């Protein structure tokens, strides 16, 4: 079994977010970029487990982005991926999914494991779009995955419980919390990372169907208000007038 893990390069969760060019662009300066946690902790780590248990022979990373995201690909190598592909271009989810699918079509993968979403735009659409382009079955938000032969067994959270589904390879899935445990890359992996092959492929046709017009920050959480324990009236008053819940 050959596994393809599409990964994305996202700002660290502690980053201070700001915008440039009249709020039309994300301001990258001073931002540390990381491997999207859903791609890393769940998709890639589970893929590595499948490889370590002998069920997969190869795990390949694929990223659609510019050269400055290569450190993130090497982080994936440090975690154990065998090789990687960077498709040199940028665009919306449709564009990314189309590029990944074109590559996957030519190179043949049995299982494509995406994260359930990225932590920057939370679009949750790339996995499904890839499945659409490839005409493969798609299982979203999987919390467990096992593979026997060409059959994958997956678990998904549903309202109030879980459901177990079975699907045939080739298959695209999106991975959610529970799929695997976060791993810390070990020193050997880090040192091996620089020797792993990274292929750079020119992006194909530029099909971008969406355009960001502008960004704005949310108001954010307001500070906590402390009320004296003897002052129930004030509490009731505030719940009514400010919080508007009673």
């Amino acid at each position, binding site marked *: 079994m050959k596994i393809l893990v599409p990964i994305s390069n996202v700002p660290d969760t502690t980053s201070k977010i700001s915008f440039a060019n009249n709020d039309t662009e994300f301001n990258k300066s001073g931002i540390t970029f990381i491997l999207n946690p859903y791609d890393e902790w769940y998709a890639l780590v589970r893929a590595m487990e499948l490889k370590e248990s002998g069920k997969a022979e190869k795990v390949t990373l694929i990223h659609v982005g510019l050269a400055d995201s290569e450190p993130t690909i090497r982080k994936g190598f440090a975690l154990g991926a065998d090789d990687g592909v960077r498709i040199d271009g940028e665009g919306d989810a449709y564009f990314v999914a189309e590029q990944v699918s074109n590559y996957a079509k030519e190179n043949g993968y049995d299982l494509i494991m995406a994260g359930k979403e990225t932590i920057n735009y939370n679009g949750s659409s790339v996995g499904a779009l890839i499945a659409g382009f490839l005409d493969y079955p798609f299982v979203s938000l999987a919390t467990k995955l096992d593979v026997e032969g060409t059959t994958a067994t997956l678990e998904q959270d549903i309202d109030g419980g879980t459901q177990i589904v079975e699907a045939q390879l080739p298959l695209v899935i999106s991975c959610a919390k529970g799929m695997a445990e976060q791993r*810390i890359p*070990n*020193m050997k992996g880090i040192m091996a990372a620089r020797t792993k092959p990274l292929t750079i492929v020119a992006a194909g046709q530029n099909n971008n169907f969406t355009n960001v017009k502008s960004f704005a920050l949310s108001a954010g959480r307001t500070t906590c208000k402390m009320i004296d324990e003897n002052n129930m009236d004030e509490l009731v008053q505030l719940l009514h007038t400010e919080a508007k819940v009673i």
Partner: protein
Amino acid sequence: MSTTKTKGGEFLIKETNAQDIFIPEQWNEEQLMMKKTCDDFIDQEVLPILDRIDSQEVGLMPSLMEKAGELGLLGVSVPEALGGMGADFVTSMLTTEALGAGYSAAVAFSAHTGIGTLPILYYGNEEQKKKYIPKLASGEWKACYCLTEPSSGSDANSGKTTAKLTADGKHYILNGQKMWITNGGFADIFTVFAKIDDDKNLSAFIVEKEFGGISLNPEEHKMGIKGSSTRQVFFNECKVPVENLLSERENGFKIAVNILNIGRIKLAGAAIGGSKRAATQSIKYANERIQFERPISKYGAIRYKLAEQAIRIFASESATYRASQNMEDAIHELIAGGMEKAKATLKGIEQFAVEAAILKVHGSETLDYVADEGVQIYGGMGYSAEAPMDRIYRDSRINRIFEGTNEINRLLIVDMILKRAMKGELDLMGPAQKVANELVGIPEFSEPDDTLFAYEKKLIANFKKAILLTAGGAVQKLMTSLSKEQEVIMNIANMAIETYVAESTLLRVEKMVSMKGEASCEVQLAIARSYINSACDKIWIEGKEALNSFAEGDELRMMLIGLKRYTKQEPFNAKAARQTVAQALIAENKYCF
């Protein structure tokens, strides 16, 4: 990497080019990834269980060490052929820094990887290395180092533990008592120092717990690092095969000294790691804690502390990595000259033993300063065992005691410098004579140089003259009795420490400016100037005390005038500089340099 070869201790008489030093802004992607792995390990595996670690839950520390071993953290400086990563020395300093934030676990790891593993790695023969190192690097075996005894601490060569060859010549029989042995409670491998028959000097032995004849006292009750195992270890007719003698007979003291050189700079690295995290906690608390309706980080008294914590950390870090790269370069040069790697590593590091001792003192005292002010910033919560500063404060204190007390290290700084001068390895006499001549000559009134750093460089050059003036005077006046005048030696050591660290800080910022431009280094410039300003005043006080103690009359007056000239500064607004530093920290809500 340097274009010109640097020698240990030479900073006293030579100017260094900023481009020749390594600065932390030059870490590459791979090194930073390794640091991140260490940080993640501390965050995920150590910090959540600090109370359990400190209660010495049975088996917990060994299992943590095994986890660290799986990640390769115990074999960073071990060659790949022996199961390690084969990383270079500077990289191992960076991982040491990151793991240094691990409280008791940091002590256990560094005792294991440093004094526990390195004697075998650097002095062991092929069989010994093959047998022990891979299992130490993986964490399967845990190591400790048994040098100190109840009656032999700072005077380490005076140990009473004995080793006697058996009649058949196949074993040494060890008898004696060791004290304060880190990791003693669970170690499998003990490096033991003992004297064979009536030898004057110690020999070293690799002793397996399995050999028998080893017993342990209960855990010591300590002020801090409560989770680190510290035991008395008794050797009672302990039978050690002759092939487990490490290196040669009577070579033990030399092994101890050389391993300590490495231990000292590593301790400085670990202290930087602990200091950065403690500073970050101080900043976060100061930003959150409201008194008189404002966060306490708005108050100048608190800003002073936040800034000063950061200034000292930045300075200590600058000096530590400068020296680390100097060691690295020296090692490579020796290897290129045909020396075998283990030997080259020891020799290369030994060349910078003066710097290692300086860094040990400065790093441990910076950590203590940061911890102490951290407690103060937390106020009552600083005194609460529920809040983090309590543990930081207690755990930091040991660093001024082990790996040679800071007094012993200060004595060593001056002793090593003078010995090198005596041997002709370091030309102090020429420059000292020049300073003496300058004193009686007419002061030069050259045009002020307004270029960036010219003024600060002149100050640093003057600090060196102040040292030469004071030390030169002390040698001349006190002659051989100088070694007994410890107060004067402490003065000179402090002058050397401040000078080396101030210079390193300036060189780092100069190199940063050349990389990023002056505009984006405004805060770092404030840090460097602020450090140099304080260093200058300290050097004046230390020098004055020394001179007043051994010179008199006109000669004293003349020397004091000289010292004053060498520590003269233009007015400097330290308050404004600290405000600049504090504001950056407060805005970032963490130690951010």
